[in-house]
């Protein structure tokens, strides 16, 4: 990427085609600039001498493909990121969902699971976890494995604890995990309500109906057409009066179904299905 880039636009098209034909991964409608940067990033991280060798490795080394998928998709996430979003979830959304006999939540593109654990903690503090199920899906089996383990690095816990307090947390954050050396393991009581599965938002269909779908900072990596497709998938997967929670810079406003959704929870990107 320094001066002359390693993977050109033409090279990118070749790789996109390989990934789709050989493996069924369809990245063609990902936002180009960001995806190209991810590709060039892993190319230089892994020290490939040429595009040809890069392509050969992706086509022929299935172990490497796993790494490739993990690196080209963005897996940066935090617990209780955007405190105001979680405060709104607690006060505006969970108060409604709490009246239902059973709560089904879908974390679409959950990555390593930080938001799923955050949600489980919220539900527990509102006394709703026992009647909730959290479905957590991602395109990438590697990160799901990590999410399922409930084990996270100790290094982030100070930050997460601050986030938790800012988000209106009611207890001592460290009461939710046990620490050993540089890692922490979250309570099994949280994990027991989570179901992890691979699901590709680009190619897979609706698999259930939910009252709340959380998909934060995933759609920014898709182009507009793909965003609309995914909103359709969410619509198909959402009960009437159900909620969708998006990232701070994402919106349903410009999608064809915008008129059937109402923004809910003040300035937060929470939308409710009205018809």
């Amino acid at each position, binding site marked *: *990427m*320094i*001066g*002359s*880039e390693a993977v050109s636009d033409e090279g990118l098209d070749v790789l996109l085609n390989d990934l789709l034909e050989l493996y069924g991964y369809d990245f063609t409608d990902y*936002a*180009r*600039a*960001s995806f*190209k*940067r*991810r590709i060039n990033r892993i190319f230089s991280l892994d020290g490939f001498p040429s595009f040809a060798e890069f392509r050969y490795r992706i086509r022929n080394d299935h172990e490497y493909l796993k790494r490739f998928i993990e690196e080209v998709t*963005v897996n*940066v996430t935090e617990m209780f990121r*955007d405190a*105001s979003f979680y405060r709104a979830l607690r006060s505006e959304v969970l108060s409604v969902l709490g009246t239902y006999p059973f709560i089904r939540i879908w974390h679409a593109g959950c990555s390593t699971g930080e938001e799923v654990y955050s949600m489980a903690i919220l539900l527990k503090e509102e006394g709703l976890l026992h009647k909730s199920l959290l479905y957590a899906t991602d395109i990438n089996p590697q990160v799901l494995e990590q999410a399922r383990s409930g084990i996270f690095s100790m290094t982030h816990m100070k930050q997460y604890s601050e986030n938790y307090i800012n988000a209106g947390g009611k207890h001592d954050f460290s009461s939710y995990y046990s620490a050993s050396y540089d890692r922490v393991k979250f309570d099994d009581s949280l994990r027991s309500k989570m179901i992890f599965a691979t699901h590709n938002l680009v190619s897979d269909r609706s698999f259930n109906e939910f009252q709340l779908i959380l998909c934060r*900072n995933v759609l*920014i*990596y898709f*182009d*507009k057409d793909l*965003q609309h497709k995914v909103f359709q998938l969410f619509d198909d997967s959402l009960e009437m009066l159900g909620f969708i929670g998006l*990232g*701070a*810079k*994402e*919106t349903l406003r410009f999608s064809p179904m915008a008129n059937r959704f109402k923004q809910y929870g003040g300035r937060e990107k929470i939308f409710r299905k009205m018809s």
Partner: protein
Amino acid sequence: MKRDMLAIGGSAGSLEFLIRTLPVFWAGLGLAVVIVLHRKSNGDSTLTHLLASRTSMVVKEVEEKESIIPGVIYIAPPDYHVLIEKDFTFSLDYSEKVNYSRPSIDITFESAADVYGDRLACLLLSGSNADGVMGMKTAKAIGGLTAVQDPATCEMPYMPQRALDEVEIDFVVNDGNIREFLETCDGNQRESDKSV
């Protein structure tokens, strides 16, 4: 030659320079401006309001998939990288920090270089890390116009100085010649209407 995009990056000490010089940016400037500043990651948009109050140009925070329009100053939102697509829209990215920074100046400069080529101008302001220097190199290599704030006028001269050391810089900008710099970016059109 006329440029279509001016990308400005700054870190510690750069806000003061922008506040002083933005009144010189005139509405009708024929290029889009994107400003990437390192700042605290809390989600408020006071920076946009502050900068908007200093110029007659339209100032707004970058929105996801928004079309880029000449004459508008776009501000990178806190805690997202800003990239530019071939169809002249912005896309946002919440990937790893680069140079300990999100938004990263390098990412925006490199992405803008990829799209605008030699129609890009880059300006690197005061700061104490080297974010942006790599992006300047990329911009220079494809014929972009490169500029830095005069290190002598910087609260933190490290960032522009690193660019001067490592990249061929076309223009050293200070409070006195910012208008001349903008005119250069705009293709040296002598504006009769440059009222502030």
